[in-house]
């Protein structure tokens, strides 16, 4: 089976680029396979623990700068990434650790980057928000990457083949005009651009009813762009919903917006959450953690333990590495 092969080929802790090439026309079978689900749950947990560890390191003063964890949203990149080939372009945003980890399975490179070590993806120069590896990019200015991804999608189409460019943005980023300029071009020129919206209904501290009029669905439709809404947290089921749409984007070279209804369970950055605990509790109850824990609580606990150990060991390792010796030219 395609996906088990894929995930088998991602050794935990590996930091080399993985060949994630996938034949998108292949459909996955609907009955979930335990081993596959176990793998992806393990990935979900490791991303979660990676993020939690960052917050911990911050509170201990061992990290500085900014970090936007994807706590509560881990399932989005875990669902999406195996559906992309490594020639596809991916544009992540400020909340991008999960995107990177799900794409490259490279926990070491990202932690080293955030901790300013020489083995960091970008030698500590990029940091949490500015990552580049192959066709994977992130940057810290909201909305900036959507027209950029549009250009990459044009190139994918010009090359022939079925490549695409995917950009992650949040709900609040629909405030940026650049998003509409890009939607317009992608639609006019029929480009294989995918915008993956992680709609957590909040931007920093602003709830989306206070910064987003109307709906994302309607905004997308108004530009003649296809739209898919994903509300579930079961990763295999998510993939099943997404695959035919991605397939269409690849075959027809048409843009697509996928809106993921998700919950941000952590602070915006560090310790800057203005929401009340009851709200957070409600959000947690609907997240993938509750879902997978309920599905098989033994498995969950076992993997959780593995994951924690893995992340703890990682931190020890990276801490002991030398600081980056990058020099400005």
């Amino acid at each position, binding site marked *: 089976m395609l996906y088990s092969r894929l995930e088998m080929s991602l050794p935990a802790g590996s930091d080399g680029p993985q060949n994630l090439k996938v034949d998108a026309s292949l459909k996955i079978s609907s009955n979930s396979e335990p081993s596959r689900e176990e793998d992806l749950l393990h990935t979900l947990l490791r991303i979660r623990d990676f993020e939690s560890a960052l917050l911990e390191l911050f509170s201990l003063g061992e990290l*500085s*700068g*900014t970090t936007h964890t994807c706590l509560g949203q881990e399932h989005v990149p875990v669902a999406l990434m195996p559906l992309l080939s490594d020639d596809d372009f991916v544009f992540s945003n400020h909340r991008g650790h999960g995107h990177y980890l799900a794409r490259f399975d490279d926990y070491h490179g990202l932690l080293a980057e955030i*901790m*300013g070590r020489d083995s960091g993806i970008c030698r*500590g*120069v*990029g*940091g*949490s*928000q*500015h990552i580049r590896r192959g066709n994977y990019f992130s*940057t*810290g*200015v*909201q*909305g900036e990457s959507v027209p950029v991804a549009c250009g990459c999608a044009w190139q994918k189409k010009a090359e022939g083949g079925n490549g695409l460019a995917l950009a992650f943005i949040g709900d*609040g*980023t*629909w*405030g*940026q*005009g650049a998003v509409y300029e890009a939607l317009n071009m992608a639609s006019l020129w029929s480009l294989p651009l995918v915008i993956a919206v992680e709609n957590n209904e909040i*931007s*920093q*501290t*602003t709830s989306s009813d*206070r*910064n*987003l009029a109307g709906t994302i669905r309607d905004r997308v439709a108004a530009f003649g762009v296809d739209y898919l809404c994903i509300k579930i947290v079961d990763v295999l089921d998510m993939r099943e919903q997404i695959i035919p749409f991605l397939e269409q984007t690849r075959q027809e070279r048409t843009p697509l917006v996928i809106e993921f209804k998700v919950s941000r369970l952590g602070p915006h950055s560090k310790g*800057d959450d*203005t929401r009340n605990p009851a709200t957070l509790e409600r959000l947690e109850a609907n997240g993938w953690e509750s879902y997978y824990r309920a599905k098989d609580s033994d498995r969950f606990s076992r993997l959780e333990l593995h994951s924690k150990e893995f992340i703890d060991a990682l931190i020890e390792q990276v801490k002991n590495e030398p*600081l*980056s010796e*990058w*020099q*400005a*030219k």
Partner: protein
Amino acid sequence: MASEMKERVLENLNLALSKLLEKDERVVVIGEDIVDPYGGAFKVTRGLSEKFPERILSTPISELGFTGFANGLALAGRRPIVEFMFGDFSLLAADQIINFAAKSVEMYGRTYAHSILFRCPVGGHRGYGATHSQSLQKHFIGVPGLDLFELSPLHDMNHRLPRILDSGRPSILFEQKTMYGQLRIQSSDLDNYFRVDHFGDHEDIARVRVDRGADVLILCPGGQFDACQKAARQLLFEHGVECEIRVPFSLYPVSDDLLEDAGSFSLVVTVEESTPGGTWGNEVAAKFGSNSDRSIQNKFLSITAVDSPIPSAHHLERQVLPVASKIELKIKDALQ
């Protein structure tokens, strides 16, 4: 204000905003996440939305749009103050700042008041990375109709904020992020050695020196004062070099006063966190070049960051930014 009261730069600015909102109904504050309880990414607007709920507008993530919105308020006679969460994002609004706000003053054949203040938190040392750490002051120098100011621990904002808005000219206030938490310098003694006074129009130039007749004149925007002061102390104690530091509130236009008597120093130094090229220091140097008596053989030194994006890692940031030890070294070298 009693000189003994300890006040942070952030508190001073916050208080000045609060008073301004209270006294002047026309003032409206606009930006992202600026309402309570959050009060803005750097807390400059904390408490304001509780006191003035109608006039603190938390916006969508639309820098160009909300800057245009603020320009509309200004046309309609209000006095908007726009907060960019990071000064870097002012580039998204450059069209509204340069092609609309600044143009509104003279483009229509008469002089119109267009009271609007853009606030730009700038600078590195916070580990935010290249798109959240820049000091873009220089890119806004020389726009007809646009004035530039910079926050400092030496300048009380209580009367200066209203003055900017009273000028009827669009203005940008740059605010070094690392300075928000610093204590203001409110007494005339900085310590046992250095003394503080203010001179020039509106007492806008703060001067810090041991005595008249220093060897070196350091000119810097408020954001670099802390580093310059540390460098000046080292130069004094380690090398016996006396420096006078002048910190103007107005970055552009550069006031003639800033260079008063500059010809009497053996070295004139500008310090800024910008990358090289098109710098504020060049602007000062040009003014110096045209004003001063060139028969005096004094040297001019411009200290800036390295020509590089600002890295994220703390230790790498220090490598490219003009920290105190580098300022000290460069001045020492230039004196030889």
